[in-house]
């Protein structure tokens, strides 16, 4: 299977990839998530053999691919702009990789037909690719990448160029096709929703390293540090100082808070950041621990709930909670959090 080992690459003198390592297992779809400019596409091109890394190596079943040129790696790559050959029609585009394998014409024909079937474009064989819509081009690009039965499929922001509704629809289709083909896949995107929808396993790339990896729900429940929580927009982040261990207590501008912690907590006196998820605020005033009071500054009805912005004090001017019942703007409001629902995060950008 694919092993990526300590890949390094710089771009115009700045380090872009800083020792990226991960594995891809059989029939697994991993998703490489990161903000734009984080080097995701470069990493894909290095794996494909289109670009050379400055350090580290790419291995297939334990054997280095350093001396295998791109056209002999038998990896599929679907480009962000699809890169369909404008001088060839739909079926000729799909047949390209098969022709390179010198398959007999009959077999090429059958495989192109079945590929067109898979993407629900059976009637489009002789269309010009320049006449296709964005969504159709995307599907042809996928079929072209899959037709030669690659050992590994890489998809570089495959839905990036499409509009929102089409994106949701196609991401489901993509998921179905990837599952059917059982080909191990690396999916690159900067869109979290897309990543959550497609991935068996998620890798978060930031500052040239993999910040966190695991199944999608892990990122939600156990963000590794402040940056991860911020990137996924998990909720209110409030800074504080650790004042006691067992039970953990953190002094913040909201008062003394009792949080929980995934990792070994840092020493007393160290800085920490607390994550309060808006959905986990409870409106019952009896709850005395982790009680937060503030003035209702704004209220918006959203997706069946009330999104309320609280003004706590000068240091914490806006604190967001989602409640089931409306409140009055300008009124005082008290909410409370269970200690298990407040997560204490490290401030640093530690590596795995």
């Amino acid at each position: 299977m694919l092993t990526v080992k300590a890949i390094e690459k710089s771009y115009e003198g700045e380090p872009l990839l800083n020792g990226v390592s991960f594995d891809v297992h059989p029939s697994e779809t991993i998703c490489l998530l990161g903000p734009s400019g984080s080097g995701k596409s470069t990493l894909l091109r290095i794996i494909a053999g289109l670009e050379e890394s400055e350090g580290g190596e790419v291995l297939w079943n334990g054997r280095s691919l350093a001396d295998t040129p791109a056209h002999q790696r038998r990896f599929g790559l679907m480009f962000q702009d699809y890169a369909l050959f404008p001088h060839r029609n739909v079926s000729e585009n799909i047949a390209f990789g098969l022709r390179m394998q010198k398959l007999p014409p009959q077999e090429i024909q059958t495989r192109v037909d079945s590929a067109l079937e898979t993407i629900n474009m059976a009637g489009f064989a002789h269309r010009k690719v320049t006449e296709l819509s964005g969504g159709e081009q995307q599907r042809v690009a996928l079929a072209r990448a899959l037709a030669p039965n690659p050992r590994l499929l890489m998809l570089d922001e495959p839905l990036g160029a499409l509009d929102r509704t089409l994106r949701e629809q196609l991401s489901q289709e993509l998921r179905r096709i990837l599952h059917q083909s059982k080909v191990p896949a690396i999916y690159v995107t900067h869109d979290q929703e897309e990543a959550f929808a497609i991935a068996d396993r998620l890798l978060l790339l930031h500052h040239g390293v993999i910040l966190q990896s695991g199944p999608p729900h892990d990122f939600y429940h156990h963000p590794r540090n402040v940056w991860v929580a911020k990137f996924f927009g998990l909720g209110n982040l409030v800074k504080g100082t650790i004042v006691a261990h067992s039970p953990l207590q953190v002094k913040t501008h909201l008062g003394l808070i009792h949080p929980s912690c995934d990792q070994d907590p840092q020493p007393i006196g160290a800085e920490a950041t607390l994550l309060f998820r808006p959905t986990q605020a409870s409106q019952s005033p009896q709850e005395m621990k982790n009680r937060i009071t503030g003035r209702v500054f704004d209220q918006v009805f959203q997706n069946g709930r009330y999104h309320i912005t609280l003004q706590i004090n000068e240091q914490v001017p806006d604190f967001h909670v989602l409640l089931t019942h409306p409140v009055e703007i300008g009124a005082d409001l008290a909410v409370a959090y269970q200690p298990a629902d407040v997560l204490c995060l490290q401030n640093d950008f530690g590596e795995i």
Partner: protein
Amino acid sequence: MNTLRKTLFRWLKQPTWRAALFWLLPAAFLVYFFYQPLLALFNLVISPTWGFDLSALDLTPVWRPLSFTVGQALLSTLLTLIIGLPGAWLFAHFTFPGKRTLKILTTLPFILPTVVVAAGFNSLLGPRGWVNLGLMALFDLPTPPVRFLNTFGAILVAHVFYNTTIMIRVVSNAWSQMNIRLRHAAQVLGASPWRTFREVTLPLLRPSILAGTLLVFLFNFTSFGVVLMLGGPQFATLEVEIYTQALHLLNLPLASMLSILQLACTLLITLGHNRVSGLGEMVISPATRTMAARPARTTLERAVIILLVASLFILLVAPLASLALRSFVKLEPTRGERGEVERGLTLQFYRELGVNRRGDLFFVPPIAAARNSFMFALITILITLSLGILVAYALLQNSAINKILDPLMMLPLGASAITLGLGFIIVFNRPPFSTLRFPILIPIAHALVALPFIVRTLSPALRNIPSSLRNAARVLGASPFKVWREVDLPLLAPSLLVSTIFAFTISLGEFGASTFLVRPDYPTMPVAIFRYISQPGALNYGQALAMSTLLMLVCALGIFLIERLQKPGKDTF
């Protein structure tokens, strides 16, 4: 009065009427000065009053120049491809020291007058050129050993000089703008580098290679000055034959016949070119990544690049540098000088530009030719710019009449300058346009040659001004005239300047039509150069080279300014 005004206003609100208003003057100009002479040529061929019977025509005087024209054009184009395609590859893929300089150099032939180029090759390889003089001195030979002038090879070399850069520009542009992902996709799908080139790169380049080839073929087909000055009397293209028949043998019907044949051929080639040049634009995604040029990596790459750069430099620089140098060096005795000749650097040729040594009534001092040329160029600028702006605004209107009038306006591009000159002397042989009082026809002919280029520069620039800017100005309270002055004019200014320089250099270097229209005592610079360079005597030769050098400098300055003004990545053809 008020109702009249209202009606007028209502009319002007319709794009068709607005377009018609803008077209009025340019169309009248074209009809009178282009289509009328053209019709006269047709008329001359079919009218029996000249005692010219079409059916009894012996076809040899037509067939011979035609087959030679096609043959030399094919051969020149082939040679151009052989040198130009590697050049295009070089420019698209690599950065190397001197690339900027070479790039500016490649724009030079595009605008250099043919007489200058011919004089350049003459000063390098002609009987008085560097190579021959050097060999004669070295081996003590009595006669020039290299025979270059009046050979077929000379024509081919000059054509390659002219057109290689066109090929390089057209193809390297397409090459470097090709989406690099397409090649990556082919590689990932299992295509080896050679296969990728054959299956992806080459098919995608084909339209631009074809367009470049047709353009080069067209230029070779219509070549006049180069063939006349370097090929000598035994080589006659259609253009040269028209010139000879009309001016030396006074056989106007045959000349007209050849002109019409020439026009038909160039139109056919132009149509073909327009057809294929539209094919190259197949952008299917906005996120297209283009390839960045890079320095050479391997020794082999470096060797190939050095070889290519060196040959391009020699091809482009050698004739021009030798022209400039030769104009400052005295190597032979001038007529009338006795005894030892003082050899060495001299400004004599430049000083002599102001002197009419021969005392001949028809031969004016060369400096007068320069003065004439500048005056004609200024009038050309005036005519082309006013008409060009009108046409650009007419084309901006969303009206069906543009579909008919635009191609009609571009037709002078297909008609050769020789045809134009011939038509002029047939039609305008009486006042007010006879050449007797003032040769106004010369700048008019130059304007006709330059107008399509100027429109092709101004029209896209005008189209690129977003109408939201004009709307914003109007909402902010600007009157239509204020809108034009505050929005259009400043944004159009760079293109106007480029157009001015274009018109100026085209007029300065124009040779074909001018040969028909100049009076002996009123020559333009290229005509004077042609005259002096074909006279015997070292002084005449030196003067011709000195004048060519000056002309070259002015054109080089012009192209340098244009390069500066135009946005990078944009080309004018």
